[in-house]
């Protein structure tokens, strides 16, 4: 469904991502792990069109979307829930979700999508009239995921949906994400520092270090890999 090949992204003169390649097949739950500063966020931004890659290709469902602007990529159903959430802080929860369904394709189903989001995160329903900027970190993350779902994604990219959350809340969020994949067959590409938990839930994973993809494999194999265990699990 998503095929990234030889992607290179610069900030000024410095490359943050170097010739990175990865694949996500339809229906798969794919994890992307790596230390801080490895270039995971940069890679995802270049996939969703927030950054322009210097080289390489991004193909989504057979369409070459390399260098397309983010708003066109969203239209195809590749939806990115970015690091730091990027919510609209002075709009209500409800308005954030409505804007998630901004595109005509999503707007037609916006009532149903909102109901689904509220079923998934009842807390958001209780707080629907509250301004997004006044939510707790966990609620904001739920809203960011909800806004992404309202856009009717076929591939949902989640960058650090567990960042800054308590371990319990982080696990709760990851479980919800897993359900999206197992119950609704939503294809997922997820970055998280909750490496062990992520690898337990994902089908497949890529490891990124200093801008390069350095390892990949079925998540269950990676979690057993002594090298991965040493770096990420601290064992």
């Amino acid at each position, binding site marked *: 469904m998503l095929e990234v090949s030889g992607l290179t992204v610069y900030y000024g003169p410095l490359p943050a991502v170097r010739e990175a390649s990865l694949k996500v097949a339809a229906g798969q739950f794919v994890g992307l792990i790596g230390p801080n500063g490895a270039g995971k966020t940069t890679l995802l931004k270049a996939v*969703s*069109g*927030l950054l322009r890659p210097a080289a390489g290709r991004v193909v989504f469902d057979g369409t070459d979307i390399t260098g397309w*602007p*983010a*708003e066109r990529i*969203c*239209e195809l159903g590749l*939806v*990115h*829930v*970015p690091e730091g*959430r*990027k*919510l*609209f*802080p*002075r*709009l209500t929860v409800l*308005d954030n979700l*409505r*804007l*998630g369904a*901004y*595109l005509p394709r*999503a707007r037609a189903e916006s009532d149903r999508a909102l109901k689904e989001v509220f079923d998934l995160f009842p807390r958001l329903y209780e707080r629907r009239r509250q301004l997004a900027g006044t939510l707790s970190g966990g609620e904001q993350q739920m809203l960011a995921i909800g*806004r992404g779902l*309202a*856009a009717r994604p076929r591939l949902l990219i989640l960058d650090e949906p567990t960042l800054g959350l308590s371990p319990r809340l982080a696990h709760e969020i990851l479980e919800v994400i897993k359900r999206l994949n197992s119950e609704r067959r939503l294809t997922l590409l997820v970055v998280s520092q909750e490496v062990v938990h992520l690898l337990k839930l994902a089908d497949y994973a890529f490891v990124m270090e200093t801008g390069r993809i350095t390892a990949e494999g079925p998540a269950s194999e990676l979690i057993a890999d002594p090298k991965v265990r040493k770096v990420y699990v601290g064992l």
Partner: protein
Amino acid sequence: MGMLVTSLASGLLLGCAYAGAAVGLSLAMGMARVFNLAHTALGLTCGYLAYFLLTTAGIDPMVAVGLLAPLMFLAGLALWPTLFRPTVRGVADPALSTSILTLGLAIVLENALSKVWTPNPRIMSTPYSNQAITLFGFTVQGSLVVAAVLGLLLVLGLHWFLNRTFIGLAIQAVAQEPDGARLVGIRAELVSMLVFALSVGTAAIGGVGLAMIYSFGPASYFDWLLTVLLIVVVGGAGAILGTLISALGVGLVLGLGGALLPQAWNSLILFGLLLTILLLRPYGLFK
């Protein structure tokens, strides 16, 4: 006492008229990050055009506003890709580059107005210009009431549009979090263009309003600009109702000051206020 109350009432009406002249500037600054120093010059140009329509064809300025505002909206749509986008693109501080651009535009307009209509001051005289209107027991000038109603309708209409329509929400989304907006599929660039065109459209309403109240010459835009900037800074860029409240305050100072103090004190009080607010709350009182 009676005079004091009357100047209070005229001050509030003047405030509404100024709110109409300021709200578009606030909108463009807050929602499209464009600092349009030509805002009042564009408004003044519309004032002259309304004057022209009135003196040559007897068209009432209220009707002229209905023609000029859509025309200015279209002018805004044309100015964005030709002048503004190239000035904003890839610039670290768009406020600086756009203010220099628009200052130039204002001076060009001033010279054009001077060429066409001479530097002599003009007065828009309509049948209701000097008619005394009694409102809630206060007697005020007819044209002031008309300008105030125009300004008030504009501000309330914009507030409604931004908060109650889907495209209004999208405008706020782009202003609050441009990347977030792009990720939900909003074409941020088009939205900025729309905001800018709206802002220029409102310049017509505010400008004709002020031209109905004051006698004006080609350089009047500068006096208007100072007052309007003061209102926007106090109200907070992008805060629509903040602009109204701030404009009412400025109107009161102008109205009361006009009645109680020599003319020169007015500016002193207003800009003393501006300096104090810039020092204490540089982001505005209502943000």
